């Protein structure tokens, strides 16, 4: 049902807010408002009425899978960590949200920090850890501030600290700041960064559940994963696992961005289609342009097209379609976006963020980027397309960590879905969407030109010649395609092709 109230077009009730339950509802800096919404009841219930294994069983039964991207079953992760014995174990919250265009975790931490703290304490109880660490990027100052306030208030109320709920369980949480390196979202890099070492990944196994922070068993979950936990325990696994699809339970928060009308946070049950998210909740494409692709999964994901619009979103379907769930960034592209440029954009990001430890990622991605750059400049050859594909596959197969293993995905998925567009760049030296500047030429339409000389005067490189009151000419050899002449011309005499 579409309603139209005051200019905003939105559909009704496609969304269910679980992870965002308190976001935009409570004052995040007042613990009482969280308690008034049944906050910390789940922790109290776990500590006083459930055994650690009961908690793990409940999470396992709920079917919750990691929301950071991988989709690993959360309950299983906790169980593995609980079975590794050590004098000290750690619970880590991964708040190193780094995908371009993603802001789900930030919003949760800014809007409902206690939910994450409560969930971390529950996790600590289930696996026998007494210390929690939130690894958060320094670029999120407001989230950091609210987390600090929340931790302080929880301590005041005895909800963090010693002997919680009069049991023998102690739990406290500290913050660790990241400098915003993308690779530190990978759990082994994250742990190294927390230890004060370089944020570089190491080969798994050993998994963090065995040897993590300071060599002790460590459980790392993403912010959104934790935000689901208190509600699952309060409402029961059987309530939660009725939502979603067979293999992906519950909801997923997406940060809807790009060329869509209603940019924002969206939380939908797993199994909702991309079409419902983009058209019904997102309100469709901006300026009523044509939909071209949607990028999910950030730099590790891929571009999905029209034919995928009716695919129900869940971990496995997105993977099968050549993309991935990722942490939940969803960037919509319209007909004006050049897909080769999109692939180049993501590769640029990966090249910048690669830690440089393994050569496939360090060198391979750089070479991929250079190839794409050549293609967008019209210097590509047909054989480059095969080279792109081969190199992508090698990088995927041989890189050390998740960053390199997935970084060629934007290239592969655009090659698969938009081969024609690549072809146009290398054979016709044209960019069909008109985004690649180097492939455009500026022309003077002789009939329209009155010879006012305005264009020649504004041209920064002197590429335009012509006598007063006579037709002007743009020398393509000198033209830098800045577009200044087109903007200046009052007679629509300059066009781009």
């Amino acid at each position, binding site marked *: 049902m579409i309603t139209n109230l005051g200019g905003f077009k939105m559909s009704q*009730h496609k969304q269910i807010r679980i992870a965002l339950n308190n976001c935009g*509802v409570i004052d995040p800096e007042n613990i009482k408002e969280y308690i008034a919404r049944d906050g910390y009841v789940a922790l109290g219930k776990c500590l006083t009425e459930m055994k650690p294994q009961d908690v793990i069983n409940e999470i396992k039964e709920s079917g919750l899978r990691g929301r950071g991207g991988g989709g690993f079953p959360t309950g299983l992760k906790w169980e593995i960590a609980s079975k590794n014995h050590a004098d000290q174990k750690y619970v880590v919250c991964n708040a190193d949200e780094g995908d371009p265009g993603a802001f789900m975790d930030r919003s949760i931490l800014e809007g409902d920090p206690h939910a994450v703290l409560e969930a971390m304490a529950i996790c600590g109880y289930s696996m026998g850890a007494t210390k929690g660490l939130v690894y958060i990027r320094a670029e999120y100052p407001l989230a950091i501030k609210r987390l600090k306030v929340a931790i302080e208030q929880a301590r005041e109320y005895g909800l963090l600290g010693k002997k919680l709920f009069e049991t023998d369980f102690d739990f406290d949480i500290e913050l660790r700041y990241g400098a915003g390196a993308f690779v530190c979202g990978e759990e082994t890099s994250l742990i190294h960064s927390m230890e004060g070492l370089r944020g570089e990944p190491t080969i798994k196994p050993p998994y963090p559940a065995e040897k993590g922070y300071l060599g002790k068993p460590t459980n790392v979950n993403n912010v959104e994963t934790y935000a689901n936990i208190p509600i699952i325990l309060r409402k029961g696994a059987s309530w939660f696992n009725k939502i979603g699809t067979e293999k992906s339970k519950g909801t997923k928060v997406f940060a809807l961005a790009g060329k869509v009308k*209603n940019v924002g946070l969206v939380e939908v049950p797993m199994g909702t289609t991309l079409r419902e998210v983009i058209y019904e909740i997102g309100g469709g494409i901006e300026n009523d342009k044509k939909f071209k692709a949607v990028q999910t999964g950030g730099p590790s994901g891929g571009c999905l097209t029209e034919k995928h619009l009716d695919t129900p979103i869940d971990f496995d379907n997105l993977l099968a379609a050549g993309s991935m769930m990722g942490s939940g960034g969803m960037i919509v592209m319209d007909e004006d976006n050049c897909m080769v440029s999109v692939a180049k954009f993501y590769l640029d990001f990966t090249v910048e963020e690669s830690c440089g430890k393994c050569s496939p990622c360090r060198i391979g991605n750089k070479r991929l980027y250079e190839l794409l750059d050549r293609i967008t400049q019209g210097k590509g050859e047909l054989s480059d397309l095969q080279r792109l594909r081969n190199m992508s596959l090698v990088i995927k197969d041989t890189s050390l960590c998740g960053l390199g293993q997935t970084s060629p995905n934007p290239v592969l998925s655009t090659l698969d879905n938009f081969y024609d567009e690549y072809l146009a760049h290398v054979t016709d030296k044209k960019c069909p969407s008109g985004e690649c500047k180097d492939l455009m030429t500026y022309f003077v339409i002789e009939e329209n030109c009155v010879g006012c000389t305005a264009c020649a005067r504004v041209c920064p490189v002197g590429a335009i010649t012509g006598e007063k009151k006579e037709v002007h000419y743009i020398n393509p050899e000198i033209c830098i395609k800045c577009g200044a002449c087109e903007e200046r011309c009052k007679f629509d005499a300059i066009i781009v092709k």
Partner: protein
Amino acid sequence: MTKIKTLADLERIKNELRSELDLESGLLNSENAVKIKVGMGTSGIASGAKDVMDFLIEALEKRNIEAIVSQTGDMGYSYAEPTIEVQKPGKDPVVFGDVDIKKADLIIEKYIKLGEELQGVIPVNYQTIDN
């Protein structure tokens, strides 16, 4: 500060919240007050939510309207920031988008005082779970 030790303590705090709100706002009963929440996530603040909140607090007091203005997190409507939620006594909450100071003024004068409908209402588009 009494520490929370049992589930019953949590329940007690829950009830305390209401009376505390009454106290803080200097009202006898918060049920009679207009409740306004301002979306103050990073995107809200970047779009000017802080100024809107300051304006609301000042203007409502000057105009003698019993109201409680509080901050909250991101409501999720990034395309229409800043967003505020207004709940008049006994009414369902209404979310307004693109609220600048001019619009906040309009909301006080037209919607809060006179109950007139205004443009720019964002309809509820999600289900909540009952707590």
